[in-house]
């Protein structure tokens, strides 16, 4: 069992959720509340990671963040090391490929709130921040929970993008999914099997707990 890879995966998943959740709340709410020209294209663009092969997304990210790109060059001159093939680069890639997993449940959550409830909050004199914190987030909590769990579990299992952007550096970019592939390549099926089982268990527990919480809450409201 590669504990370093597992802890790196958990760290990557945790940071991805931390960064993506506030962004997802902002974007999901904006898409739920506002109607503007070209909205469908914005939604399509944000959903792209769902359908794009991970290697394609990984390739573009590698090009966009690599040493030859302005972003890569700026980062390297500022921090002193390249953006790709290290944890920061992996985190940026992870945030980007998880965008639909965070935004879509949040958008559905905010869309389910009746528009008059927001109007009522404004008539009550609530600030935007208070409306979000006190009214909208508690009503869209199922979306928040789904976004968190999906982003976390999906990051834990992502392989293609991680390999393209991060490579396979122990303690830096070698996540558990890469470690499993490594073990299989080295004909260590027992090691691969244990790690796969751990990954399966963590993902199942996370998603199962989310479903359970949601269905309990539903039966409480309808029961």
């Amino acid at each position, binding site marked *: 069992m590669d504990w370093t890879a597992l802890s790196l995966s958990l760290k990557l998943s945790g940071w991805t959720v931390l960064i993506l959740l506030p962004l997802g709340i902002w974007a999901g709410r904006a898409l739920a509340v506002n109607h503007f020209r070209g909205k469908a294209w914005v939604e399509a663009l944000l959903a792209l990671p769902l359908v794009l092969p991970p290697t394609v997304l990984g390739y573009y990210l590698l090009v966009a963040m690599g040493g030859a790109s302005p972003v890569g060059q700026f980062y390297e001159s500022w921090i002193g090391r390249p953006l790709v093939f290290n944890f920061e680069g992996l985190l940026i890639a992870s945030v980007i490929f998880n965008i639909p997993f965070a935004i879509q449940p949040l958008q559905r959550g905010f869309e389910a709130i009746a528009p008059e409830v927001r109007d009522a909050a404004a008539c009550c*004199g609530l600030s935007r921040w208070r409306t979000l914190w006190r*009214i909208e987030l508690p009503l869209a909590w199922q979306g928040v929970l789904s976004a968190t769990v999906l982003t976390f579990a999906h990051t834990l299992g992502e392989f293609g993008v991680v390999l393209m952007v991060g490579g396979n550096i122990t303690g830096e970019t070698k996540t558990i999914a890469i470690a499993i592939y490594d073990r299989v390549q080295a004909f260590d099926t027992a090691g691969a099997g244990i790690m796969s089982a751990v990954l399966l268990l963590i993902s199942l527990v996370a998603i199962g707990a989310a479903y359970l919480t949601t269905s309990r809450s539903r039966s409480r409201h309808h029961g």
Partner: protein
Amino acid sequence: MAEHGICARLQQDGPIPLDAELDCAPGEVLALVGPSGSGKTTILRAIAGLLRVRHGAIHCNGDCWFDDERQVWVETRRRRVGYVFQNYALFPHLSALHNVMEAMLDRPAAERERRARDVLTRVRLSGLENRVPAALSGGQQQRVAVARALAREPRVLLLDEPFSAVDRATRQRLYHELAELRRELAMPMILVTHDLDEALMLSDRMCVLHQGRTLQVGEPYAVMTRPQTVEVAQLVGLRNVFRAGVIEHDTARGVTVIEWRKHRLEARLQPDFAVGQQVTWVIPQGHIVLHRRDRPSRGERENPVSGVVLEYLPLGENVALTVAVNGPDRPPLFLTVPAHTARRNNIAQGAEIGVSLLAEGIHLMSADESRTPRRNEP
């Protein structure tokens, strides 16, 4: 500018066309009535600042909330409006008490709960403070919505069809409560309704709207019995709209005489119309009196008209009659009589009946309008 109360002038071509002007004094209830899509809710939302119209101005107690020429726009949260939404729009995850407390954030925290409880008691909800909206009946939810709107100590109270989502018995009780409550309130109140009886019962003035235009504003009974145009007459449900010619004005007796289908009818004196002029006239059903067969009364001398019952439609305790006067091919007269009266007088389809058109109820309007009465007949 309205020094006291609210004053709004709203104009735009689309997406919802508006050309409305209205005002409401402190303590006054103004009812906005009109069919669906007439712009009632749009006006209310514009006053609350939930919708920004292209042109116009809104002033409240001397403050400008909106003026497109001066580019003034005050956000909803700063306008201090109390808004009771059609479906109440309560915060579903908060208790009745916390729903009300959310509208009092400008008060010290310690005071909020005590005051919220006071307001809930005022709308007869004490004991139910800790229930969430889903655990309250429709009428109770409406009361929470009213309490929440009042808790903010609003400068204007806006009520958007607040009685439409409750059953009839609850509605009657809520009418009574609102009528009681309004006596204690000193702010302007604007009530949106499509129910004319509701407007008649609860409002001091009524504003008739159609396709975003204010057609007539006035005391509800006056608007409903003396509409200024045929359009208003139709919108307030007056079905007896006919054409006639003015014969004479008898100022001594206080009557204007018109000729309608060879009948000389005496109407309340309305000297604005010249002798010989063609006019449109209306009469509310309440001013048509059925002649009793068994016992003729004095009232029968007042504009007697006879006709044949074309349609006899029982409607619960009343019967709606459609009566052909001077032939079945002309627009008929509509009247409603109590069912027992209809039975006692042996009224049935095809029967000949006599009615009196009370002079006080005959109201003349200009005939040269774009909207003419049905079938364009005299």
